[in-house]
Structure formats: C-alpha cells, structure tokens
C-alpha cells in the first residue's frame, strides 16, 4: 500500500460526486468509471509499472477529491483530466525507491482451476449454438492447423479471417465475464 493513499482515504461523498460529474446517469457513470480505470491500468502497465491497479486507484482518488473544485469550470473530455493526473501520480511513483514486488506467475490451485473449468463448461452451454460452434472451431487445432482451420471457418461463415477473429474475441470477452461471475457466485 502506498503511504499517500493511506493518509488520504477517499470519502463516500467525494466518490459520489465523481460519478455524478462523469455522468448524471448512475449506470452510465459507473460504466464510464470502469472504462477510465481500465485505461489507466493499461497505460500504467504499458509504461512498465508493476502496481498499475494501485496507481490507477490513486489517480481516481485524486480526481475525485478535486471534482468539487473543477466541476463548475472544467470544459472538455473529462477522461482526459484523468490522464493528466495519472502523469503526476506515475511521476511520483517513479521517484519512489524501487521496491519491486517479486514476479508472480502463480499456478492456479487445483480447486480454483477445477472450478474455472466447470464455469467454462457452464458458460459454453449458455452460448448460442452458432457462437459455441464458432468458439470451438476458433480454439481447436494447434499452430499451423489452426490457421487453416480458421480460414475454413471464416469461409463457412461467409466472412474474412479478420471479422472471424473479432467475433471470436467478443465471444471470448463474454466468456470471461460469465466465468468471473460464475466464480464469484
């Protein structure tokens, strides 16, 4: 945990004000919040930051604390404001003494892995027959055979390989959300 974050804990009213500033509609505000957080993490990771989630949350907290001051006068894409604050947070992070956490490529423990497999089967079952056939075809075969198979799969669906890829990855994205929900249940 970052010392600055421990000292400045975000209050609930500050967080609510942030969401309202992002969008008066709570649902859209929540969606926008998630998107901004994801972007911040992606950028921090791409900058080589080892704790992107921590810095992204610190960035959001700082913006939330400033909303009361800027909401009346700020003009433009509000997401861009986060990027500016992120640069400051990251700059401060780089000045900190390097305490690299040990690399963790932790293997899944057996129970969780098994549960993930069960959830995957459940989520595959929930897909439409077309989506399921597409995802099965997309992930089947290996290496060179996979390329041939995907070309054939694209031809069968009357689309090119690029569109097939996008469709498959969108189904993959749905599977991810479904499996995470299943694991939390």
């Amino acid at each position, binding site marked *: 945990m970052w010392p600055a974050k421990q000292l400045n804990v975000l209050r609930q009213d500050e967080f609510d004000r942030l969401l309202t500033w992002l969008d008066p509609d709570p649902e859209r505000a929540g969606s926008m919040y998630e*998107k901004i957080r*994801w*972007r911040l*993490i*992606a*950028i921090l*990771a*791409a*900058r*080589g*930051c*080892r*704790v*992107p*989630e921590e810095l992204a949350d610190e960035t959001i907290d700082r913006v939330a604390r400033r909303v009361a001051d800027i909401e009346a006068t700020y003009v433009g*894409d509000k*997401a*861009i404001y*986060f*990027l500016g604050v992120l640069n400051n947070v990251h700059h401060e992070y780089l000045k900190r003494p390097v305490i690299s956490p040990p*690399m963790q*490529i932790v293997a*899944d423990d057996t129970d*969780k*892995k098994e549960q*993930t*497999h069960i*959830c*995957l*089967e459940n989520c*595959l079952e929930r897909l439409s027959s077309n989506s399921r056939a597409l995802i*099965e075809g997309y*992930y*089947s*075969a*290996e*290496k*060179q*055979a*996979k*390329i041939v198979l995907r070309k054939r799969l694209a031809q069968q669906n009357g689309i*090119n*390989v*690029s569109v097939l*890829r*996008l469709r498959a*990855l*969108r189904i*993959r*994205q749905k*599977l*991810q959300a479904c*499996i*995470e929900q299943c694991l939390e249940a």
Partner: protein
Amino acid sequence: MLAESYMASKTERSNTQTPPEISDAMIRRFLLARLDPEQQSAFEASLFTDGKLEQRVRLAEYELTDYYAFEQLNSSEQKQFEKNFLVSNNRKNQLKVSRALHDRFEPATAAHTPRLLSSFAERLTSLFNLRQPSWRIAFAALLSLLLVGTVWLAIKKEPQIKEEIIRRVSGKRVSRQTTPLESNHPTNPSAPQHEIMPSPMPEHEQTVQSPMSVGLAPDVTREKAPSIALPEADHAVVRFELALKNNQATEYRAELVTAQGQAAFEGTATVSSSSDIVSFDVPAQLLKQAEYQVKLLNAHSNSTVATYYFRVR
C-alpha cells in the same frame, strides 16, 4: 506461421478499421510495453479519446493472453508478457480462462488431429513399425488362422491322419475310457479297434518265448519218473520230447493223463526230423504239482504206442 498470419490480419484490419495509424501490431507492442516514448504518448492520448481503439485493445488483451496460454508467443514475447503484461488481477483472471480454454480444446485437438509426418521416410518407418498394436494384432490373427487351418485339415480333410493320431494316442493311453477325440466322435468305428489292438501282444510273447523241453523215455517206471519244475511265465509251454523205440507210424497223438487216470489235455504230437522223437506241447498252466503220464497214440489206429511218466514239483 501463425504470427505471420496474425500480422497479415492486423494490416488488413488496420486498413479497414479506425484509426488507420494504429495497427494491431502497435497495440500488441503497447500491451507488451515495447512502444518507444513518442509512440506511447500518442497511443495513450488515442486510448482516452477513441472508444473503438479501447475495444480493440481490450480484444487484443484476450488474444495475447490466449496466445500465451496456447504457447504461441516466441520466447522474447513470453518474457515481456510475464514481466509487463501480467501485472493486474484482471489480466491474471484472463489468463486463468485462457488456460481453461487451452485445457478444454487443446487435448481434444491433439487426440483427433492426425499427426503430420514431415517426410515420406517417417511415414514408411511408421508403417512398418512392428511395435504398433496393429501389427501385433495381425500376427496374432495369422497364428490363429494357421492353427485353425491345421486342425481343420487334420480333422476334416485327412481321415488317415486323424486315424493315425487316434491310434497313437490310444496306444499310449489304453486305460483311458475317453480321449478328446473319442468324446467328440463317439460313433467313430475305429474306437473299438483300438481296444483290440493290444491283444496280439501275448501271442507275440508266446512265439518268441522258447518252450521248456522235457525229454521222456518209454522204459522209465512211474517210481523213477523225472521230476520237472514248471516255468513261471503265464503262457509258458512245456514241450515233451518223447523218445521212440522204433518209428511205427507217421502221425501221432498224445494224451496227458493224471495219476487218477483223468485226461487233462490231448493234442497232436509232431515227429521230429530225427524220426525217433515226437514232440508234444502242453501249456504249463494245465500242469499242477502232481504225477502225470503221457500216452502216445497212433493217430490212425488210436492204439497206444508208448507211455511216459513224469512228476511236477
């Protein structure tokens, strides 16, 4: 290879989808933290303003994670992935699902996709690999066919062989009531023959065994009659060689009579080549420990020619 195809598809997409200046290859470099600082700044700005780019990057994250789980990244990319990409819980969760997808689909692929042999030599070696189960089954089937064929020929097509086998088997196993062949062929007419077959054996012993010869003279009285010991063999024969005073006839008969005057055996007496001895064979089993007399008779006139006495010890 897959990476080339991936790159080709990226170029195609980057030309058809917005923004044209950001290719899928650049997205991948962004995710692996391999963009130079200038590209990085431009990319970050675009990511915050372009919703489509954001969606592309999200999908590229899944694709990259899948490639890692399916071991389709080169070693450099793998290291970059582990060091720079796998830094958030969200991405770690993505990897878990990618691994689950790999486990779900990759084994089935390996099992059902025929292995591509790189050369004709490999195919040939594989074809004639005698350790293959198919070859083992073929050899077993061949041996079974040979065995069945041999038995079929012996039983159905070659009755002589069959009889020979039965004869040999029965010769060794006289005492057995049923051999496999007899059980399977109870009406076989050759079966009774095989019980009769051993019977000539005693005859063979009779002819081969030399008879015990006993010389008897006509002038010897009952009191001075020779005493003989019987041979122990079951089918032994005692040949009495009866001396003649003078040869009065050409054909003789002889009677074995007990001391009580009862006839115990009679038969033809054979004149020997010397013409002064007549041979008379008596089965030893008819003789007991007692006194006997042999009456030599003229076969034509039935008159007594001479009488001979002997005693069995």
